[in-house]
């Protein structure tokens, strides 16, 4: 039986079994903390700089399935998703916040991104992802991390989003970039009136 994480990883991931060394692990963790800081401080244009031009940013929906049909419990590529984005569609979404009329984020949410359980592996260097990258790309990492995102809005609105991210990171001359991000939210019916934040 395939697990949900297989299902999510399959479209993108070709990780090999080698864990990263200590300094890479440290670097990736710091990269995520910096990213969380940018998101929590609504510095979205700086956040965009952490994303590769060939980004695929995907947050599939999940459903309750019979046990023998568990493989279908995470929507496949092309099925219902909360996000199915490219870098330019994310830029498009972010441009809205600067309009002064994006009411769902005006006044803005207070958010706190907690990123934990970071697991860094070397991705297979023959993977397409390296091939589609900028010149000289050699180091590609497959990273899984857990998140807990707290959102608080207006006087007393609260949302908790818990889940896992499966990322492909590419090392470039400017540091790490996110090439793929799959966000697996641990919810079926979305228990929030909207998703106007990023993970």
């Amino acid at each position, binding site marked *: 039986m395939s697990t949900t994480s297989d299902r999510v990883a399959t479209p993108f991931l070709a990780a090999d079994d080698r864990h990263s060394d200590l300094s890479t692990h440290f670097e990736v963790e710091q990269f995520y903390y910096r990213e969380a800081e940018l998101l929590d401080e609504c510095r979205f244009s700086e956040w965009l700089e952490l994303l590769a031009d060939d980004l695929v940013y995907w947050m599939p929906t999940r459903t309750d399935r019979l046990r023998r049909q568990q493989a279908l419990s995470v929507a496949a590529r092309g099925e219902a998703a909360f996000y199915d984005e490219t870098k330019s569609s994310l830029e498009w979404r972010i441009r809205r916040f600067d309009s002064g*009329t994006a*009411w769902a984020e005006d006044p803005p949410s207070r958010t706190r991104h907690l990123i934990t359980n970071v697991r860094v592996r070397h991705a297979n260097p023959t993977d397409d992802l390296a091939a589609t990258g900028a010149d000289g790309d050699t180091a590609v990492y497959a990273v899984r991390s857990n998140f807990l995102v707290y959102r608080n809005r207006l006087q007393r609105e609260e949302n908790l989003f818990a889940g896992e991210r499966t990322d492909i990171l590419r090392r470039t001359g400017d540091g790490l970039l996110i090439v793929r991000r799959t966000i697996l939210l641990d919810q079926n019916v979305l228990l929030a*009136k909207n998703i106007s934040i990023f993970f």
Partner: protein
Amino acid sequence: MTSTPELAGRAGRPTATPAGPLHRPSELTPTIDVSGLVDADGGLLDRAIFTDHQIYQQELRRVFAPSWLFLAHTDQFRRPGDFFTTYMGEDPVIVTMDKSRAVRAYLNSCRHRGARVCRADAGTTRNFTCTYHGWAYDLEGRLVSVPNREGYPDRFDTADWGLVEVPRVENHRGLIFGTWNPRAPSLREALGGMAWYMDAMLDHDGAGTEVVGGVHKWVLEGNWKLSAEQFATDWYHVNMSHASALMLLAPAGKSPRDEIVHRAGRQYVDPNGHGAGFPVHPKNRFDALAVHQWFDYEAARARLGDARVEGPMTNGHATVFPNFSYLPVNGSVRVWHPKGPDRMEVWAWTLVDRSMPDEVKEAQRLYNLRTFGPSGVFEADDGENWSEVQAISRGFVTNSVPLNYQMGLGSEREDGRYPGKTSELYSDAAGRAFYRRWQSLMNTPAWYEVDR
């Protein structure tokens, strides 16, 4: 006592299940006269209809139970045993294809002690087995297995204890609706003049529609009528509520307000409470570029007529009373499931033309996901409105101040182009008709009350 359904059913109950000598005291279902809460002629509404618990209970009994309610799309059932679970009002139902390939719907509640017999959202199965004591039902709803069957008395007949079936299930161009009301007019009759407007989305080329990608589900802290009414009647909010999204869609260098504000259009006002509004322009287009480039507008003109292609085929909004709404430009169809007076759950599907090439379907799916749906740049701001209106309406004084539905009062007329009564694009006319229908149902005993 008898187990014959004709003799033992009803007694004020909406289903013909054997009830023996059981009968519900009328105190359990107090009825409120809502005449004074809706002034459809004058365009005034009392906010109590969005907050009161007794009114909500009465809505489940008299608005939801007797009406045709959207269940699913025919595309979700391809072979026997395919099922999808949803709600009719607050009642959980299973929609499935039986062995003869008929789509049927059953109350998702075991006839023994009432547990749900199917707890998956969708899938394929041979039967529905209750995980409480193990009663099992087949795709035809028959009770086919009862552990310790010999423990029951002789007069216990499994034929009396099948799943409660939704007595009427019909579809209009792929949209499946069901009703508990055995005396309801046919679905087609209930849709009435609204079908002409719906077909502008559902019947572009005769090949029909299909679902892409499953169902988006999310919660909103608002009364279901706020959104159902808005989709029936409210183009007015677009310019303000969606200013930021319109900015994203506007051609570079053009102010979105000029683009949208001065649009002319019509709003269809259906006597059964349905409504649809749409700008009218000979160059109205699908928003998603790939859809626009693929679409054969000339062929659509030949099939649907100029009026529909220039109006309700692309931009616009619509509600089929009570709680089914859609947006033709991106194929978003949704149900506003009531979850108490203060809450609803939105379930949204994306429909595309079956005839579209895969990459066009994909473009429509992505466009819909990015504009409507929980992360959509339009939809996010809608949810904000409804939860805001709901949150403050508990205030005693706030709740007592009437709301205004007076735009376009008296403007409904036959315009010679769009069938039925229509009003201006910017109008509350379909909203007034929505609440007139609501009021009439709320004050009319449902079929099972008349049987008593």
